[in-house]
């Protein structure tokens, strides 16, 4: 395939006019307090921080900065609420969760716009992926609340107590749902700390709890930064810690809870391998590669950030991939036609930039489709590195950005060896028309989620979580309940 032909897909005739989603569906207050014991309140220390839109750096709101005293108040509220909440019949807890699910559905467009503003991801994703999954997650665990004796944790499993939950900025509301839904279904109460750069959807969720009539103190939201999170997971009256974020912080938390009776689940980093065999359904494999690394700007722990392609089809796959990348639309996250939005923060952009430069310096070949990046905000063009070896930093370290490292393999054994050759073990993809090979590789891959002829699929019924340094415990499905239940 020559380049002149493959380049023809950058249309000049049919340019889509701007199609911005309306901002007016969401009403962001100039400032937000902490949500503790059913009320919004200022932080004890009176400190605040701002949250900005990563797409244009506009200040969206001012948010209370929670510190140790605030965390303590929140944990106490959760502790107080625990007695009645855990004693409620499951049927009643179920109905609260069903209410939340329904309100999320009703307000999903508002929440999608809000999430896009605060996070920078395209409205297409918040509208079509994040929000439907949030609602579905609450629906699913709502149904478990009155069926806990079937969860595989004994005939009469007990909740653990107060759950300390710390969620990241890449899927702020979805990660909140993954944490809060099973915790409440099982009868726990929660204190949740959203990420510093994306606190707004959690605060809107607090309002949803109020609309649903959720008893006060069952859900508490404490906004802040890493210190806030550390205070939360270190609080003595917390009996469960759930964290999603970087492996480095996950290890720190594991050290913090050592020697306590706190239960811990961790969803950490990854360096997922997407393995493409020569008999793959090629067009769909290309879509899977693109979705695997450019969904949410690659800021996904289970991203297919390494493409392992069988050497015999390397050129063909790369040609098709580049042709497809030329059609990606990078820009205004609120535009309904945008495929790739903004990087969440300047800090994250710096890390991506640094690793991409390391890739070049180490001799890998860098390529990006022609695309104009906006002047304001945090942006990084979709990038592909070819000629990458296992020893390159971009093959080993999690970039957490729209950067794909392409490696080759010759045999299934080599593919598995390379895929497993990282400290991580979260996700992997296999592309081949041969069913028995899929199952063999799936057995051999040391990863918590293996997608075959698809990628980045999520469902509330399906357990998600990692091997090795990608963390432990599972979220989603029946297995996800175990993290919040004591066998009895």
């Amino acid at each position: 395939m020559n380049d002149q032909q493959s380049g023809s897909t950058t249309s000049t005739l049919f340019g889509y006019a701007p199609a911005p989603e309306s901002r007016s569906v969401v009403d962001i207050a100039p400032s937000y307090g902490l949500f503790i014991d059913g009320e919004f309140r200022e932080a004890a220390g009176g400190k605040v921080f701002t949250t900005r839109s990563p797409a244009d750096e506009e200040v969206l709101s001012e948010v209370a900065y929670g510190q140790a005293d605030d965390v303590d108040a929140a944990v106490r509220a959760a502790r107080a609420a625990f007695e009645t909440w855990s004693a409620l019949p499951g049927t009643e807890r179920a109905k609260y969760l069903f209410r939340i699910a329904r309100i999320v559905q009703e307000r999903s467009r508002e929440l999608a716009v809000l999430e896009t503003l605060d996070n920078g991801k395209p409205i297409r994703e918040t509208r079509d992926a994040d929000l439907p999954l949030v609602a579905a997650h609450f629906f699913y665990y709502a149904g478990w609340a009155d069926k806990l004796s079937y969860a595989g944790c004994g005939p009469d499993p007990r909740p653990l107590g107060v759950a300390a939950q710390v969620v990241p900025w890449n899927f702020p509301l979805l990660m909140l749902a993954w944490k809060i839904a099973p915790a409440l279904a099982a009868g726990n109460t929660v204190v949740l700390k959203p990420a510093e750069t994306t606190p707004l959807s959690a605060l809107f969720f607090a309002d949803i709890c109020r609309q649903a009539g959720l008893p006060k103190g069952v859900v508490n939201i404490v906004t802040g930064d890493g210190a806030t999170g550390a205070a939360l997971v270190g609080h003595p009256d917390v009996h469960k810690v759930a964290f999603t974020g970087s492996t480095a912080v996950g290890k720190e938390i594991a050290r913090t809870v050592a020697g306590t009776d706190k239960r811990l689940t961790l969803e950490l980093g990854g360096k997922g391998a997407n393995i493409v065999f020569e008999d793959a359904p090629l067009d769909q494999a290309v879509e899977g590669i693109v979705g695997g690394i450019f969904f949410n700007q690659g800021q996904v722990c289970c991203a297919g950030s390494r493409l392992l392609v069988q050497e015999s089809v390397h050129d063909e796959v790369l040609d098709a991939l580049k042709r497809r990348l030329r059609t990606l639309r990078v820009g205004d996250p609120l535009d309904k036609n945008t495929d790739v939005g903004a990087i969440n923060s300047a800090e994250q952009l710096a890390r991506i930039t640094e690793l991409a430069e390391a890739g070049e310096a180490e001799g890998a070949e860098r390529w990006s489709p022609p695309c104009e990046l906006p002047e304001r905000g945090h942006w990084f063009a979709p990038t592909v590195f070819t000629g990458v070896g296992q020893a390159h930093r971009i093959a080993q370290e999690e970039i957490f950005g729209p950067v794909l490292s392409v490696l080759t393999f010759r045999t299934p054994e080599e593919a598995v060896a390379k895929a497993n050759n990282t400290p991580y073990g979260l996700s992997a993809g296999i592309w081949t028309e041969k069913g028995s090979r899929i199952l063999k590789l799936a057995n051999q891959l040391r990863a918590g989620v293996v997608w075959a002829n698809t990628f980045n699929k999520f469902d509330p019924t399906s357990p998600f979580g990692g091997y090795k340094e990608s963390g432990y415990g599972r979220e989603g499905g029946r297995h996800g309940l175990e993290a919040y239940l004591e066998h009895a």
Partner: protein
Amino acid sequence: MSTPEARTSPARGARLSVLKTYKLYVGGTFPRSESGRVYEVTDAKGQWLANAPRASRKDARDAVVAARKAFGGWSGATAYNRGQILYRVAEMLEGRREQFAAEVAAAEGLSKAKAQARTDAAIDRWVWYAGWSDKVAQVVGGGNPVAGPFFNLSTPEPTGVVAVLAPQNASLLGLVSVLAPVIVTGNTAVVVAAQDAPLPALSLAEVLATSDLPGGVVNVLSGGTAELARPLAAHQDVNAIDLAGADPEPATELERAAADNLKRVLRPAPEGVDWAAEPGLERMTAFLETKTVWHPIGA
């Protein structure tokens, strides 16, 4: 509202209520019986409530056709989708809570408070089953560690068209307790309402018709249980029958008739059922098949 009070003549000057015509529910529409027959439905004190359609064997046949037609779509819908629709049914039930409580009170001769409690339990029961749609496979299915290089997975699948004889003594709670477990897993149903207390069932049909439930997934017949049970038990295109509402002796006859095409049969409990107790999985698993898939594992 069809409370007995509403059906009596009003005092001078008061408003005369509009009575509801009760109809069958077949294939998403509300026909009268093809036979043109009705029968008197009275409250527990013998006071007239309504003329209910007395369905014929031909109505039963039409209902089976409708149920079969709906089976492909309903069983092929995602479990999530079915769960959403069933939860919507619960929402609509809640919206008509007062009406159902009144109908249950009249049908079963219960106090207002007791009838309300039964109705609430019926709504909660519906919610309970709605939640099973995407969980039952996780509890009764699973991977099997066969001794060889094979992937081996067992999953439950709905058995098909299920005839349901609703309990005679629990017009709404009993009905919900036998109907919801049949359809939540993807079966379609032909329900014969409690013979002497069919009105809550016929009103439930109105709820189902406005809850995004595809037409034909549930078909509701009123009339003589024995008259309708016989053709359903013998019907070659019915896959299973729940005999909850059959008397012991005819139940045996019906089970024998059902053996002709090896229908799955759920027998009536001889000592009766406490419809208020949490039911367990049996009413779902009774109408599920287990499918096991083998696939080699090798690079």
